[in-house]
Each structure stands twice: as C-alpha cells, then as structure tokens.
C-alpha cells in the first residue's frame, strides 16, 4: 500500500527523525498539485504538525510555524484566523488521512471479523509510524478548547460508527448498550495509553488483543478468541 507520507512514494517505515518536512497526503482529498496557494497552505499545516508535535501546542507560536514553513505572515493570516484555526485544520487533515487508510483496509472484501482486523491493522500502523503525528492527533487536540473537543468527539464517532456493522453479525437483539461505542472506546483507550507512554512503535503488537476487544461485544468470547489467534498468526 503506498505510503502517502513518504516523499518518494515508496512504502515502508518512515524515519520521523530525519527532519524532512512532512508532506500532506496527496490524491485522497482532491488537492491539486499545482496551485501555489494550496502548496502554501499545505506547508503551513505541515509545519504546524511538526512544531506542535515536537514542543506541544501551547508552546507553539505562529512565528514558529512561519519559520518552519517558510511562508510569510500575511499569507498565514489570509488562510487562517489564528494559531488555533491552523491547528484545527491540520488536525482535520490528519484524521481524514487516518480515516481514509482505515476504511480502505476495512473495505477489502472478506468476512466481517477479518475486515475489522484489517482496519485495526491500518489504524495501528498509522499511529505507529510517526510519534509526533500520533501525539498531535491524540493528545494536543485536548489542550485547545471547547471547539477542538467538539471536533474530536465528532471524529471519534466516525470511527466507532464503522463497528456498528457488527450489530448485523451479532445474534443478540439490537438495543442498548451501544456495543460499537463500547468497542470503539476500548480500542481508543489502548491506543491512547501507548501514545501517552510514547510507545507508539508497540501498537502493531496489540493487533491480536485489539481484534479481540473490538469483536467480543458482537461475537462473544469463543469467536473473538478465534479471531485473536488468527491475528497472532498474521503478525
């Protein structure tokens, strides 16, 4: 699968320490390559991700972002109202990319449990690839304020909604509790913990356990354990 964050387009682990400016994923959002304005916006967003990922959002200034991107102040304020606006835009781009990768993997044909495993694998790989990006996506967003929190809540719903398909495969009558919400929250907690502990490289190792956690509410212990074992074989 092509790695949208590699400059060369080659797949494989990216060295997050190599200091290259992070490039936004291309082609998935209809962003044309040629437009100068688009390119400047991308550079600003990329710089915001890099700086905020390294030193935290509160310590990040607009001046930091301008310096890291090479874009002028006037241009910044044409595109964004303030630091927060730029950060929220950057966060949205990241989450959209995560969602696109996850759903692409999830959509590959196969039995539902296998599709969930594939989606989870893509999700975990995304976070594992770049600790700064993982931190920006998961942690820094919480420090911004009510607008960001609302956004985060909405974004989370998109992901847990993917699991609602599980209700069709469960032989239990539908109704409260919301199993997709529970399964999604459990997966979230595990990822969050690794991000906080600065151990995102460990995330792919959690695939079997998280496959179990995501499937158990819908399929029960026996079936979920079987899927967990399959995930162990594939790791």
């Amino acid at each position, binding site marked *: 699968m092509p790695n949208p964050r590699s400059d060369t387009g080659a797949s494989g682990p990216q060295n997050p320490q190599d200091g290259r400016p992070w490039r936004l994923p291309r082609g998935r959002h209809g962003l044309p390559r040629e437009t100068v304005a688009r390119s400047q916006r991308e550079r600003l967003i990329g710089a915001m991700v890099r700086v905020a990922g390294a030193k935290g959002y*509160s310590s990040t200034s607009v001046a930091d972002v301008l310096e890291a991107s090479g874009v002028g102040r006037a241009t910044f304020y044409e595109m964004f109202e303030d630091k927060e606006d730029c950060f929220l835009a950057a966060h949205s781009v990241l989450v959209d990319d995560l969602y696109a990768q996850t759903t692409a993997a999830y959509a590959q044909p196969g039995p539902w449990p296998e599709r969930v495993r594939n989606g989870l694998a893509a999700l975990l790989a995304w976070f594992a690839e770049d600790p700064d990006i993982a931190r920006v996506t998961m*942690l820094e967003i*919480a*420090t*911004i*304020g*009510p607008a960001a*929190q*609302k956004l*985060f*809540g*909405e974004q*989370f*719903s998109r992901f847990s909604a993917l699991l609602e398909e599980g209700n069709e495969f469960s032989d*239990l009558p539908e*109704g*409260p*509790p*919301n199993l997709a*919400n*529970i399964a999604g*929250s*459990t997966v*979230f*907690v*595990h990822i*969050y*913990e690794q991000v*906080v502990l600065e151990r995102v490289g460990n995330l792919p190792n959690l695939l079997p356990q998280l496959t179990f956690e995501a499937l*158990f*509410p819908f399929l*029960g*212990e026996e079936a979920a354990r079987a899927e967990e074992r399959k995930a162990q074989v594939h790791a």
Partner: protein
Amino acid sequence: MTQSSLVENNHGSIGAERGVLAHTVPQDVVVISQRQRVLDAIADCCAEKTYPATTIADIVAQAGVSRRTFYKLFPNKRSCFEAAVQRFADEVAETVEAARSEEDPWLDTIGKTLGAVLAMLASKPAFTNLALVEAVGVEPALIDAYWKLVIDKLRVPRPEGKDDDQWERETRVAVGAAQVMIAQQIAGGRTDELTSLLPELVYIAVLPFVGQREALMQARLTS
C-alpha cells in the same frame, strides 16, 4: 453557639464567612467558603477558555476574591487545578458511598450506583469537564490516580481466576473506556444527557463477573 456545619474550614483565611445556626439561614442561601468558590471558579474558567489560557486574574475575578486570598489558598494555578480534580474525585466517591448498599450484593446495586454518579456528573458540567477533559491535557496521570480512588470506593471484588496484574489492567481499560464515552458526550455539549450512558457503564462493570449475555441483559434492564 456552635458553628453551622455548612461553613467549611477554609484554612484560616482572613474574613472567612461566620457560621450561623442552620435554622437561621434562609432556604435559598448557601454559605460557600472562599476555597469552594475558587475551585468552582477554576472549573468555570477552564470550561470557557481551557486551562492553559486561564490566568489567576481570571480565576479571582470569577470567584470574587482577591489575589491575596488566592495565594493564601494555593501557591499557583496548577495546585488549584489539582485541588479541583481532587474535590471532583471526593464528590464522586461520596456519591458512590451514598448510593451503595452494605447489605445487598454489589452486583444488585451497581446500576443504582452508576446512575447516581452519572447524575452527579450531569449536574456539574464544568467540574466534569475539568476532571475528565481538561485534566487530559494537563497531566494524564492525574486521571489515573483519582479513578483508582473511585474503583476502591466501588469495592468491586476480583473475579476468580484472575491475578492482581491482569485484573488491574482490565479495570484500568474498563474505566478508561467509560471515561472516553463520558468525555465524548461532554465534548459534544451533551453533559445533561450523561445518564443515557448507564447501559454502557453497567455492561462494562458487570461483564467480568456474569459473562456476555447476562451483562447485556442487565444493561438493557437499566434503560
């Protein structure tokens, strides 16, 4: 003349509210100590502009106290924040204590207990936001500490066949998942609807003890 129990000991700050006998206090007057007001104020300020953006000037303006009073109570903003989180944890623990029953098995009353906690959270949106959402940005470890306190209060026994480490891990994940669901609702501005999460919380709480189907049954019965 004894002081009313409504007045809290606010650590000797000058000008503390004087105690009055309970029966002379009008129904709609609640005596709140300065410390309480400051803690309420930091919660309100954080809800409005987040912890990093909140200044001591903001807090004292909101609380209606002087800077001098603030510094008698707390050495800095962070210390005030931690005290607010602690007070939140104490209130949750008190709610659990009040709802729990010494006689009935905990499984029978967990629905009532969790319902009481959710109702309490819903009644204090600023504090819930501070403890569950803001705290994440300030210091993730804070949350760990006070959830341990709550788990302790709930007195959930360890299921057979699980060792300490495994059980602690599972409990932490379960509590974390509950926190995510609650935080998501708060973030979406639906703090007043928190009680709608009761089925999910009951499911998570009883699952290790009764198995999948029974947990679903019990969760459904609460709604």
